[in-house]
């Protein structure tokens, strides 16, 4: 692909005290690309995702979004976050707000749109994740799969230019994984730029342009999904895939 990357991670290091969670991480994601990130637990996948939207601050290297460098003077992190949606493993819906209120809070507070506009937009996205009929319920009244679909709709209500997913299905009961992956696949087909941390290999094969394998804070390899699953380049990736198959 040509042109500038939408998201660019350059030589990034992240420490937690003495511990190095990310070491020399490089990743460029272009508009419309879908990246699947996988790797063993503790390999730094969440840390990478959280550094990209500034939930964690990296210690060395640079991260840019649409040409704007995070933490550079004059660059507002809050404004960048409004263009980058994030979906968490534990959904993190706001339990004191109804599904609809979860979806309209941020657009109303940050985009200066009216309540009516925000509601209309929210209904549109809730419909898109097939959960419009639950709009007036509270998160605690929904199943895990439903909650995660609401979380996706809530992020989409900001009309972001990219979406980050951090193991969106790993807290779900198995029978609910499909409904969330379907929504994500639909989103991918609509052209959204996506970085997904997931171990759902079927999803990776269907959707990913590239699979990134991380281990011990570094990116060990980046390949096309078919290539990655058939011929992992590193021993660690091969061992990781072996384990995943025998789960």
């Amino acid at each position: 692909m040509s042109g500038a990357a939408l998201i660019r991670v350059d030589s990034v290091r992240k420490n937690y005290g003495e511990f190095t969670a990310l070491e020399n991480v490089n990743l460029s994601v272009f508009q419309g690309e879908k990246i699947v990130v996988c790797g063993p637990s503790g390999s730094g996948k969440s840390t990478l995702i959280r550094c990209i939207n500034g939930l964690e601050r990296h210690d060395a290297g640079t991260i840019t979004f649409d040409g704007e460098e995070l933490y550079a003077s004059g660059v507002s992190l809050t404004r960048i976050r409004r263009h980058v949606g994030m979906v968490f493993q534990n959904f993190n819906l706001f339990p004191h707000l109804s599904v609809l209120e979860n979806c309209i809070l941020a657009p109303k507070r940050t985009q200066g749109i009216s309540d009516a506009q925000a509601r209309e937009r929210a209904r549109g996205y809730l419909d898109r994740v097939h959960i419009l009929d639950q709009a007036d319920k509270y998160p605690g009244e929904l199943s895990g799969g439903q909650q995660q679909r609401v979380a996706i709709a809530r992020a989409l209500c900001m009309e972001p230019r990219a979406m980050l997913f951090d193991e969106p299905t790993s807290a779900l009961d198995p029978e609910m994984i499909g409904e969330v992956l379907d929504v994500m696949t639909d989103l991918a087909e609509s052209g959204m730029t996506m970085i997904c941390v997931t171990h759902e290999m079927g999803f990776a094969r269907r959707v990913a342009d590239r699979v990134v394998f991380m281990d011990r804070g570094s990116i060990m390899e980046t390949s096309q999904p078919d290539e990655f699953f058939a011929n992992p380049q590193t021993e660690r990736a091969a061992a990781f895939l072996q384990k995943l198959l025998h789960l």
Partner: protein
Amino acid sequence: MEFDTQVFWSALFSAAYLKGALITLSLTVIGHATAIVVSLPMALVLNGSNRIARTLASGYVLVFRAVPQLLLLLFVWNALPQFIPIFREPWFNPFLAAWLALSLNEAAYQVEINRSALRSVDHGQGAAGIALGLTYTDVFRFIVFPQAARIAIAPTVNEFITLLKITSLASVISLQELMTVTQIEVARTFQFSEYYLAALIYYLVMVFTLMAIQKRVERRFSWARSGMPGATGGAR
């Protein structure tokens, strides 16, 4: 000595008692409201990372939890005017002194309630708000505070009831609250049971009303049947 029903009823409906109860109630409401306003930023500071501010706040809590309310009341009323001339002026009355003393004291207790309520809100909530591009102020106002407030309701009402009773100590600085009024009447007539019973009824009514309000507020704040998110499956 016979129980004089007549005396009891007239005490119960006397202007002095009613006024005393109103002073008790307003001192409690104003004092506790002040304490909450003071203790909220203090709780944020104590949960925060600014070391100097944290040390100052914990010093405050330490001192004001250690000082007996009686001593604090007497200090503010009698000793403070010695150090600070403006407190010598006529506007500084027992009500203001009691308000100042009890707010300072109550803030030290309320701060612990606020703190643990704020802490009980999952970190993911703030992260989700920040990730949506909300400002820190909005995250606090719309996400963290409402959830912490629900947790804080019950212990806060408990504190309020305790404070309501503590206001009776203000009789030592001659504030005409309910207990002072009662003691004046008893000293005048030696009819203990009639006047004590009337006072007791005022306290009971005030406390029971508060508890009823607490129930209603708590019901209004219980947003979902099953409570917290992630009802099905948690983090692995």
